[in-house]
């Protein structure tokens, strides 16, 4: 568009999105969204993907954002369309994902009158957004769109809602490409304080039992190369959170895998015994720490986070550093390079960790009832895709097994709902991820419960020819809740059995996707190869052991050392 040309709000918004580099928008139209959809009809650079439920739009935009590092964009009509986005917006908020949600609103003179399909979106979303706008004047739309992208993608990323009454879409607007976004109340601290960085470097250099504890902030900051440098420079053993998987290659000798409730024995005990815990872009969540008072009891703590509100929220660090993980870690590397360091200092510690890794590997037993071990299926996915697929998950047991038995080697490889724990996230997120990274093999590891929450998005995958491979670990239960009921509620399986379910193979075929069912161990690999090679959306229904549990497990609120099932075969079903 030529600059300064008079246009309509809806069209100017499309142009603003294109100028922000947005190439895809996930959405679902409706009454007051029609002017915007009319503008989308002519869009050249911006592609619209029609989902089958607005929740799918938000999750797909989220998956796209996580896979690419760009801002994910979704849109919906007013009222029910907009409220259907809510779960997806909350999901993006809890996991700090850059998302812009454009919700259309009833005419501005009708706002507050309980008009047809009216919902107060800026009000409803208040606790789950980084920021929100109600734009009543078409002239403000482009500026707001630019601000929204800026806010969503910088500092600690997060979702921004733009709620637009339909008359603003129809109103006149002069589009000017906006160059600077100066928001007086928004100045994220990117550079860490050099004094703090020096103090941290000194502590790292002196530590005898250090541990690097990495969260999703490492991935959003693009800090994986600096982290690798830092870890190798002082041979720091690495534990990652669920959100941090992929921030450090799990094939690396310094990797201890995930820590926390279903983390490895090695990682959890290392954190328990360490004398220095270096937390980067992580937030000491209860699923990581267990009983907070007993977490890392011998450690001095360095906490690096771009969000000052995270520092000191759950633990009081000795050395807080507010700043972007990339910048701070580069600073640490720079400082450490000038310091003398005898490698013997941490040798006993590394030997102890190596020994523990040998002694307590993750393990499972093959089921005796002829079903598949879910862990085996994931190992096969890992093997067939050579640690190289983008793995999306739903929430529950399969998600935890996916963290344990797939080997993550690069950032943005693991896409999962961490903070909110949203069942139904996997399939739409995988569609978004595949659209964002068409070159990658994208696998959605799901459960029979979560899959049924958003399975209508198979139609979207078929519609737009998005060849994701959905692997349902089908145990006929809402497995994680059943596991808790087994362990802590006297096996009273209250409403967790879901063995009355559709035939997923036929269901996939009914949607026009490829459907398969696998019951035999030796069929797992060929089915996976076929699904990946077919180039179409595919669903594989793996019949897995109904009452298999995720181990090790730290019961909620317990100390990390009170782990169930981590200690070799005898302790497995304690």
């Amino acid at each position, binding site marked *: 568009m030529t600059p300064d040309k008079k246009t309509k709000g809806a069209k100017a918004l499309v142009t603003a999105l294109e100028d922000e580099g947005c190439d895809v928008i996930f959405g679902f139209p409706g009454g007051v969204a029609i002017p915007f959809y009319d503008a989308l009809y002519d869009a050249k650079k911006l592609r619209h993907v029609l989902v089958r439920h607005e929740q799918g739009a938000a999750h797909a935009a989220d998956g796209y954002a996580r896979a690419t590092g760009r801002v994910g964009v979704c849109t919906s009509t007013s009222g029910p369309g907009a409220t259907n986005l809510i779960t997806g917006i909350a999901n993006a908020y809890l996991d700090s994902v850059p998302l812009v949600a454009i919700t259309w609103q009833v005419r501005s003179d009708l706002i507050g009158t309980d008009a047809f399909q009216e919902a107060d979106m800026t009000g409803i979303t208040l*606790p789950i957004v980084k*920021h929100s706008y109600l734009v009543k004047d078409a002239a403000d739309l482009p500026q707001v769109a630019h601000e929204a992208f800026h806010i969503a993608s910088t500092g600690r990323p997060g979702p921004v809602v733009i709620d637009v009454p339909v008359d603003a879409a129809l109103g006149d607007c002069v589009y000017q490409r906006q160059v600077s976004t100066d928001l007086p109340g*928004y100045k994220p601290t990117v550079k860490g304080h050099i004094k703090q960085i020096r103090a941290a470097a000194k502590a790292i250099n002196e530590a005898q039992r250090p541990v690097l504890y990495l969260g999703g902030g490492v991935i959003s900051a693009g800090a994986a190369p600096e982290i690798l440098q830092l870890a190798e420079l002082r041979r720091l053993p690495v534990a990652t959170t669920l959100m941090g998987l992929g921030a450090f290659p799990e094939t690396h000798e310094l990797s201890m895998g995930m820590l926390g409730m279903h983390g490895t024995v090695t990682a959890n005990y290392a954190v328990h015994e360490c004398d220095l815990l270096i937390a980067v872009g992580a937030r000491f969540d209860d699923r990581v720490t267990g009983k907070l008072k007993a977490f890392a009891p011998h450690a001095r703590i360095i906490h690096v986070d771009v969000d000052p*509100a995270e520092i*000191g*929220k759950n633990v009081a660090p000795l050395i807080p550093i507010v700043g972007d993980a990339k910048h701070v870690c580069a600073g640490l590397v720079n400082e450490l390079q000038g310091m003398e360091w005898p490698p013997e200092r941490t040798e006993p510690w590394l030997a102890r960790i190596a020994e523990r890794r040998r002694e307590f590997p993750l393990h499972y037993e093959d089921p005796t009832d002829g079903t598949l071990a879910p862990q085996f299926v994931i190992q096969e996915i890992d093997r067939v895709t050579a640690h190289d697929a983008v793995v999306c998950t739903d929430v529950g047991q399969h998600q935890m097994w996916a963290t344990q038995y797939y080997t993550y080697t690069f950032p943005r490889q693991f896409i999962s709902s961490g903070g909110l724990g949203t069942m139904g996230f996997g399939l739409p997120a995988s569609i978004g991820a595949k659209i964002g990274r068409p070159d990658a093999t994208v696998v959605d590891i799901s459960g029979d419960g979560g899959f049924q929450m958003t399975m209508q998005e198979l139609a979207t995958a078929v519609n737009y020819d998005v060849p994701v491979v959905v692997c349902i670990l089908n145990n006929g239960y809402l497995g994680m809740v059943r596991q808790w009921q087994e362990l802590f509620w006297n096996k009273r399986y209250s409403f967790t059995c879901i063995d009355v379910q559709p035939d997923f193979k036929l269901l996939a075929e009914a949607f026009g996707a490829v459907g398969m069912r696998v019951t035999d161990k030796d069929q797992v690999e060929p089915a996976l190869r076929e699904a990946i090679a077919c180039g179409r959306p595919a669903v594989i229904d793996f019949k897995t052991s109904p009452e298999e549990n995720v181990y090790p497990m730290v019961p909620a609120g317990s100390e990390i050392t009170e782990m169930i099932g981590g200690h070799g075969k005898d302790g497995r079903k304690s």
Partner: protein
Amino acid sequence: MKHTLSILVENKPGVLTRVAGLFARRGFNIESLAVGLSEDPKLSRITIVIDGDEHPVDQVTKQLHKLINVLKIRDLDPDNAVSAELLLVRVAGEGDKRTEALQIAEIFKAKIVDVDRRAITLRVVGTNDKLEALLELLQPLGVLEVVRTGTIAMGRGRG
């Protein structure tokens, strides 16, 4: 411990909701809240008084900083700030009681802003402590209605 937060915000619709909502979500009870324009008509200043321990107050302050419309927050040190609140109180008063009410008003430099046969209405400006003391003295006479603006406060000197 009581904290008086002075928050400079953009003067835009919905900003007060964002600020107040944050306190509610973090489990704070707001004791008083006063909002008005600042020296710059594009900006408003909110004075909030809350009761809470150091750690939660620190956390809520950090969360407030994250609101895009919030520009500046100060946790005012009571020893180094001036504060005031305006109070309107209607006191029952006939005969001796009225005389007593008028004497109390005199001591507190309260202004009589309304009178009828059964009651008088006083307006008084002062610190929170002064207003509490006044109300305590008036209580036996029969306090019919109280309206308070909430504390406004400002750092001393150059702030």
